[in-house]
């Protein structure tokens, strides 16, 4: 039986156009040059390819290309943004306070905690039951020494969209810089640096049909936002991310950005229709259902709980048909549950039965209908011997 892939927020299949574009840079005849080798044609060709990809990334972000710093992943970009900025300002006594949010990706929370271990002070803002941030809480948390606010545009588990332009407006008269993790937004929502008001943006290619192993940090180039590098060596990427550039990966990221821009107008509405079809289908099936995360939401993510059934049991029930992401509680032997859902106050039954469904370019309506049928059947069977069966609400 074909496995229906509904885990595009984890990673996406490589776009064939991107793959074709990358192949010449993996060849042994001409595409192997080191972009730093300016003394011969191999190096200059590689350098030109890197420059072109930088333009492609910048074009998608509507931002100056000299702000793009290629990294190995979004996690690395996030670490460079947070630790690089905090270390830079702390060394110069220009601040030591970071603000982030409880529902951020573990890369952000982990980097903030590392900064904290190095002497920074950290404020983690709560969210409401819908996963939304309070702007007044943000304003209250701002201090004279706040150096950085780090927030995601689209939550990777729930799809909830933070109002980043409003956050940027709140920071307008404050020296704190704004880092936005746009990893889940690229290709699904417009990501325009100016419109967002961000000083730093991080992203990863494999979330939007590019290759794994390549990400980027965009940081304001005019005036140049200074970062302390995390590693040291050659002068690549303005010295902020030294190391020989992975030309094929960078070319892949550039092409993925170009494709994302090409598909953006049509993909957003199409993915939203698929997401709504799944949710509507499950509601109409009359099984207990809880949607985790309020509006606004990104079009490609739906986080749903099936109260009354255990997530690990439901996963065993559907996993021969559906490739979906369980809330971490369902598969984790520690049963701690998703930190995002816990921050939103989702109860135990919801936490233990939460799944993320996420869609991409290869998703279609037939797959959604099959998912509705498989999930409904599985939930009904598990509820038939659940002691919580009478405690959960069934939708007619």
């Amino acid at each position, binding site marked *: 039986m074909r496995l229906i892939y509904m885990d595009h927020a984890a990673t996406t299949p490589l776009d064939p156009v991107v793959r074709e574009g990358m192949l010449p840079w993996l060849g042994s005849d001409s595409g192997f040059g080191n972009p730093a080798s300016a003394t011969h044609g191999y190096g200059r060709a590689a350098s030109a390819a890197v420059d072109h990809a930088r333009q492609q990334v910048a074009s998608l972000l509507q931002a100056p290309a000299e702000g793009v710093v290629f990294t190995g992943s979004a996690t690395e970009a996030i670490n460079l943004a947070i630790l690089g900025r905090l270390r830079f300002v702390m060394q110069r006594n220009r601040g030591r306070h970071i603000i982030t949010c409880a529902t951020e990706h573990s890369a952000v929370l982990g980097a903030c905690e590392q900064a904290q271990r190095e002497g920074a002070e950290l404020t983690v803002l709560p969210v409401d039951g819908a996963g939304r941030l309070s702007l007044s809480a943000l304003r209250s948390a701002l201090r004279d020494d706040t150096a950085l606010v780090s927030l995601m545009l689209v939550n990777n588990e729930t799809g909830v969209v933070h109002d980043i332009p409003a956050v940027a407006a709140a920071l307008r008269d404050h020296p704190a810089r704004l880092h936005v993790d746009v990893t889940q937004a690229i290709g699904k929502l417009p990501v325009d640096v100016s419109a967002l008001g961000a000083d730093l943006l991080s992203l990863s290619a494999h979330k939007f049909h590019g290759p794994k192993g390549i990400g980027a940090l965009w940081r304001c180039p005019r005036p140049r936002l200074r970062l302390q590098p995390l590693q040291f060596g050659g002068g690549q990427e303005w010295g902020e991310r030294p190391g020989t550039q992975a030309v094929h990966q960078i070319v892949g990221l550039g092409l993925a950005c170009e494709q994302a821009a090409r598909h953006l107008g049509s993909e957003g509405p199409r993915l939203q229709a698929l997401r709504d079809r799944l949710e509507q289908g499950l509601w109409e099936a009359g099984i207990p259902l809880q949607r985790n995360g309020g509006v606004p939401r990104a079009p490609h993510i739906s986080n749903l709980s099936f109260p009354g059934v255990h997530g690990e049991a439901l996963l065993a029930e559907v996993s021969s048909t559906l490739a979906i992401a369980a809330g971490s*509680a369902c*598969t984790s*032997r520690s049963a701690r549950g998703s930190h995002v859902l816990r921050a939103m106050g989702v109860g*135990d039954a919801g936490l*233990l039965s939460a799944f993320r469904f996420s869609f991409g370019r290869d998703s279609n309506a037939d797959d959604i209908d099959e998912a509705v049928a498989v999930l409904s059947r599985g939930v009904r069977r598990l509820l038939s*011997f*659940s*002691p919580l069966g009478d405690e959960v609400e069934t939708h007619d």
Partner: protein
Amino acid sequence: MTEYPAAVLRHFREPVGAGVFAPDQLRFGTAALGTVKSGTKVVFQLGLSADGLVDRVGWLVFGCPSTVACCSWFADMLPGHDVSQAKELLHGQVADALSIPRDVRTRVLVVEDAGMMALRLADEDRQKTR
């Protein structure tokens, strides 16, 4: 997805004895143990015949496939055994019988304890109605 032993999958997919009886039966015990928060909640029922053999087993479970399989295994294995034999079956045998990995065996204990409690209640009820 977690890989499950074949015996666990067989019982999970075709469970024996799922469901519960009306509780007001003769020589009968109902035990409810565990919590949603801990990830395992079990209702286990067990009835004894007049001559002291297990003749009814029912259960409901909120839990992982291994806990479902444990309930099913007990419902499959317990009928026909007397109280002392049932106690032996309920004490530490199911995990090995189903090849349940060590790191989820605490969940098995919840099912075993529920089974033991239901057996004790049923046996007490049988002693009263003798």
